[in-house]
């Protein structure tokens, strides 16, 4: 991009054409992860709202570190493995907690940690629905999930729907530069039935998870409270390309721990 393009705001006139599926794939990998073999992390912080028929209220906070292990397969494809590790915290503190005084039920909940992955994906050139405004660019990843959200994965109950939408924001000028990784800001929303450890099966309503975060470069960028949690509960998570191999999720992790009690 030359000086004239910068002055006139013509950020889209770099070498990348986001309407071209191959360029779009490259931009996607660079924004969300990396165009070379690399590990990227996102540091997320958010709030869960209890969305009840008579109102919504903040329920609990959470933090997570998402790990993506990216690999370039060839010019037209990338693969990545995603992991997540995190914890819940009180609304007025960032320290991880294991028990929670639920203000809606007035019961004490034994919480589970946030744990997920590895989720493996291979991506190839495709049309993506980018939103572009000046030098800013966004891509969103809406995902619907159908499943059982109870204490056990019962086949007697109807499946329930949850919906997650993850939005990544970057800069066109960075996607056009020579580096393999671009900075990325993330917003995460997730609408779900009550997770079982909140013991709210009898309460009409749902959970709304809302979080913000960014791609981070090093252990130095990890918040202090998260460092404390990882050192205590998930050693080597940040350094390892494969912190665990058995696929899991926060629900599955809770159920397995629950069985052992």
């Amino acid at each position, binding site marked *: 991009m030359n000086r004239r393009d910068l002055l*006139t*705001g013509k950020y889209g006139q770099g070498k990348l054409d986001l309407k071209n599926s191959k360029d779009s794939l490259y931009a996607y990998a660079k924004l969300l992860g990396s165009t070379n073999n690399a590990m990227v992390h996102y*540091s997320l*912080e958010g*709030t869960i*709202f209890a*969305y009840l*028929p*008579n*109102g*919504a*209220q*903040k329920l609990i906070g959470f933090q997570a570190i998402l790990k993506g292990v990216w690999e370039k397969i060839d010019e037209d494809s990338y693969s990545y493995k995603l992991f997540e590790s995190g914890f819940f915290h009180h609304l007025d503190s960032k320290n991880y907690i294991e028990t929670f005084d639920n203000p809606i039920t007035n019961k004490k909940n034994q919480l589970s940690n946030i744990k997920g992955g590895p989720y493996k994906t291979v991506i190839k050139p495709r049309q993506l629905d980018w*939103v572009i*405004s*000046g030098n*800013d660019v*966004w891509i*969103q990843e*809406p995902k*619907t999930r*159908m499943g059982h959200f109870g204490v056990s994965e019962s086949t007697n109950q109807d499946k*329930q*729907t949850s*919906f997650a*939408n993850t*939005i990544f*924001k970057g800069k066109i000028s960075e996607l056009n530069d020579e580096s393999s990784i671009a900075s990325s*800001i993330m*917003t995460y*929303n997730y*609408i779900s039935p009550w997770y079982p450890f909140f013991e709210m099966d009898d309460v009409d309503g749902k959970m*709304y998870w*809302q979080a*913000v*975060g*960014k791609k*981070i*470069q090093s252990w*130095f*960028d*990890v*918040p*202090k409270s998260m460092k404390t949690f990882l050192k205590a509960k998930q050693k080597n998570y940040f350094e390892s390309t494969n912190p665990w191999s058995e696929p899991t999720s926060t629900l599955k992790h809770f159920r397995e721990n629950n069985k052992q009690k």
Partner: protein
Amino acid sequence: MPIKKQMNRREIIGGIGAIAASPFVSGQELNFIDRGINLNDPIQNALAYAKLIGTSARSMVHIYYHGTIFGMTPDEGVKPMIGLTGVLKGVWKPWVDNGFYYTLYDCGYFMDLKTGAPVEEFENPFTGELNRPVKIIGGPFDRVIKPDLRPFKSRGDDLWLEEPAYLNFVNKLDPKIWKKASTGEKLSFLYVETYHGKVSDLANPEFDSVPMTITSTHNTSWYPFFLMGQRPGGHYWQSVGKKVENLEVDVPPILINYIEKESPGYFESERPWKKRTGTFQAYKNQRQPIKD
């Protein structure tokens, strides 16, 4: 200095043009006091809010947005229904007791998910019926920003403010009369607006207004034009956008042309219209109840 009643396009283009590029500052557990800003001080917190979302000066800001409405029902899951795009206008001024006052307007359209063009009608993926959306129009809505401790979040030089709002109010559309357009006697909305900016910009005393991007999520009762009646579920409105720095670079020409046709002078005027309106009111004004 008196509030200007008119603003030309050149002034909009230069609205926050004095903003310099932000240096990247690495680090965690950011100490805002060391950076010249203390968000634990209610007065500085309100000033930061005004600079991020609008402006601390007597001026106008415009926010471009673009998104999708997804419908959610217990039986059929989640389906994208329609797109939306528009420009919010905030008319800001300093207020008493270290506060700020702003008036918000909204103008835009519901759009085709594939082409991005305004739609007159579209097929509802849940009912299979043709729906005719109204135009997106809202405001004037007035708000006072008082000194307070808003919970900003930070990672390095990046800063966010999540602003949730829960609204539960009487539906203007009586379900006994508007059988297909009304979801019930009361409407329930959970809005979460997430604003993102840079700490270094907010800490710079030379800036009245700083670059900001926004993500909006609205969990709401069905819009009346979806004609879902009292079918269980609701919709999830998601949009992304930004404070407009340069109208012609940041906002697609199709949207600028639409707004200038629908509401001439919208970008320049501090009071593009006087009577308060909103999507539900507009529906009631423009449409007739549909019989089963």
